[in-house]
């Protein structure tokens, strides 16, 4: 069970869609409040029992990194969302001297969320605290689209798993909005929670289902066809829910992490939804991911600077 120590509190992890053993991680000094950021690529196979292996790629940045995402089109390209409002593209196959390969600076405030389009593969979204989302393409110098509509910080964006032009965003204005890239205004506004919505994700198997995680400690699962009320509400976290992810392998399975330092697995279709709770982190858990290539493989990172990778059902700390 690989365990990595990051150089700073971890904020995000992503499994590579191309390499089973590769993990991308974003970390930021001083809990992201100030200081540098680090983008890391880790090789799971390199982690032996003898201690933390050196990362394949490590790049410090001048400001905090809040999120990262792999490209779906290039195996070595990845993006990082920075606290200074920029989105940076890195090519991990290139030496550090040539990185980042792209710098997109348009947001007026911190960029907090990134998501790469898994269907079209040629574009990605950034979600920023300046209340907007922007659509980018790596080969275009400026954003392709800007989406305005939120009234407060946008924390996360997630592409639909099925529709190439549909995505949703989670914001501190307590709404989740569903957008179509062809329209400037949101298609649907879901008043998701009584408090800030920090994260959301689409069900990979049912294109109308999405889940939102909020500061009110709950996760709500919505059907966009009837957005007045959630399908169900998953409660069990003791503090704000930082991220939610749907499983790419099992329908209805949700992974969530929270400021209560736990990672939880849920099945929202069940009456007793909580499947597992992992309390391996000693600080806020800020980033989670479920591997697409390896069924059941989970990763999490937190402000305790640790990155854990483990298969569902086992103990993340077991060596």
């Amino acid at each position, binding site marked *: 069970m690989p365990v990595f120590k990051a150089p700073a509190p971890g904020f995000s992890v992503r499994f590579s869609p191309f390499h089973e053993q590769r993990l991308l991680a974003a970390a930021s000094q001083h809990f992201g*409040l100030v200081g540098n950021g680090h983008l890391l690529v880790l090789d799971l196979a390199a982690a032996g029992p003898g201690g933390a292996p050196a990362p394949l790629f*490590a790049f410090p*940045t001048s400001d905090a990194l809040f999120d990262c995402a792999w490209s779906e089109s290039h195996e070595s390209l990845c993006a990082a969302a920075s606290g*200074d409002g920029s989105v940076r593209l890195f090519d991990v196959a290139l030496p550090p001297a*040539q990185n980042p390969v792209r710098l997109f600076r348009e947001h007026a*405030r911190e960029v907090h969320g990134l998501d790469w389009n898994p269907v079209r593969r040629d574009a990605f979204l950034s979600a920023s605290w300046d209340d907007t989302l922007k659509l980018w393409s790596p080969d275009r110098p400026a954003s392709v689209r800007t989406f305005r509509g939120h009234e407060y910080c946008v924390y996360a964006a997630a592409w639909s798993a099925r529709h190439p032009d549909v995505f949703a965003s989670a914001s501190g204005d307590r709404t989740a909005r569903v957008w179509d890239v062809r329209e400037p205004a949101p298609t649907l506004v879901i008043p998701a929670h009584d408090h800030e919505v920090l994260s959301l994700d689409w069900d990979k198997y049912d294109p109308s289902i999405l889940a939102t995680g909020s500061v009110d400690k709950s996760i709500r699962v919505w059907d966009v066809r009837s957005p007045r009320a*959630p399908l169900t509400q998953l*409660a069990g976290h003791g503090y704000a829910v930082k991220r939610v992810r749907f499983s790419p392998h099992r329908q209805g399975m949700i992974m969530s992490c929270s400021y209560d330092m736990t990672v939880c697995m849920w099945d929202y279709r069940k009456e007793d939804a909580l499947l597992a709770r992992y309390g391996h982190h000693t600080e806020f858990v800020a980033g989670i991911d479920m591997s697409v290539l390896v069924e059941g493989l989970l990763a999490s990172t937190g402000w305790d600077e640790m990155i854990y990778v483990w298969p569902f059902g086992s103990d993340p700390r077991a060596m």
Partner: protein
Amino acid sequence: MAMRHLITGQGNCAPDGASSSNPLGNFANALLGQSSKAQSIKELPGAAVNVPSTSELGTAAPLSTIPGSENEFKQHQLPFARGADFIRGSPAEDWIQSFRPPGLQEFVGPEAHFKEFDQIYNNTGATFGPALDGIFVVLGLSMTGCPYSSLDNILQHIIMTPKIYPGPPQRVLSGVLHSFLESGRAGVPFQPVPVPALGLSESDKQCIRDRSCIMARHILADQPEEYIQAQVNTLLHSLDINSDYRMKGPLHGPLPEMEEYWNQSQSAMRSAPMHNAADKWITEFGQQNNNPENWALSFEQQYGPNGWASEFEQHQSQMAVMGGSNMANLAAMEQSRMLAQTLASNNDPKFQNSKFFQFVSKMSRGELIIEDNEVKQGSASQSSGWADEFQTQYNANANSWADQFVHEEISQGADKWASEFSSEHNQGGLNENWIDEFSKLHVGDEWAEEFGGGAFGESSADPWVDEFQNQLSASKQNSGASRGVYVFSDMNPYVGHPNPMQEGQELFHKGLLSEAVLALEAEVLKNPDNAEGWRLLGITHAENDDDQQAIAAMMRAQEANPTNLEVLLALGVSHTNGECMVIRCPV
């Protein structure tokens, strides 16, 4: 590997993914002087540095040190072209070329500008942590056919670092942030620990300010907004960051177009199955709102709306002063909305909040026992710098007060005490009659001792009561600055403070009562007619069980604003507490 290790040369700098030599380490060693403070942005000649207003870029990068090759990180200037050559030959170039939009020219001739940078760099003699990132970005931009054809635009996008801290301050910063998080989680108010100068630049401070505000709202979701603000302000103060409001306020209140959605979804929610945990949380919260109030906390509540109103006004004026950037306006709107909502509805959570502060302040007060005019240290305080601070402050204050009393105690006989009393308070034309009347009453030493013990004597002597009232009215008729019997503390550190009123209110909220006293005294020294200041001062003294000062302050408040009912009520309460006479209530 941490950037800080790179820069300070600590530990073994294994460069990331590069060769076995330590180019970055050498670079760091070469560059890094002893100055670790980040400096403000330098205006680069001919470069319009377009800085977003809310997240400033760091300082100027020493562009002269652009590495031409991956192995030579020297301080001396390497021409930019060399880097380009390096890349050109490599196979990576092809991939990079694929990114290049058609029809864009190569970069030539930035060297001239870089020479200017060299000059700047050499002239200042300042040493910064290397802007590695900025260097790479420049390379990256140029290599990949960056669309910005002018150097100005390139410079716009150069990332100026450094926010790199050397060892001790960084550890301190981490420590402070860590304890802030811990306190947030534990629900305990964050205790400010004095922190050495961290050398944070203005942009850093703004970063911390903005982000901690937003993140604090995530962590402290249950708490009312003012509690969160107080915590964040504490954090910022301890880091010596000005907590002027320029942050993004929270979004409170449902958006108008959502009203319908809300109503429908709320009603639908109730019928939807809810899990137990959510129920518990909601009912717990509801229960806390139903606790009975005691009179002391009714003060908080009464004070609450007033206090917030004055703070609100202060915020309004602050915001009016600030420039009219879009962000500021938005923030102002949100802040005012938030405050308005707080005013309207939020007594109960504040109640819960203040109860906690009450508890904490009582706890620390319990550690200080005043016995027979001596201040005795209680058992060792729970390890908290705040409690120690409180103690020392309290000692300082109490000592002066207690000393005064000791002096008076020594005097034999009531009249001597009375004359000392009168002389101390600059009464000037104090009625001799009153003293005589006073000594006529056979109160004697016992009474003086009782008084020295901190409690007023039994109010059985009506003539004395009348005389006191006469004296009260007599003193009221005396015009002049020093009326009443209020005793100011000497050595007040808040006297030069720009806004002691707000400071006092904040401190009061936090439960730092003797600090609040000092701040409020500074305020009323500045504005003797500030009824609110006097009133708050009186309440603070009452909280501190210093009823004499409380009464004195309240009387001043009443003079400043005779119509204020709360003042009268507070006066009544304090007097009742002090078990002295009941004043006439002109209601």
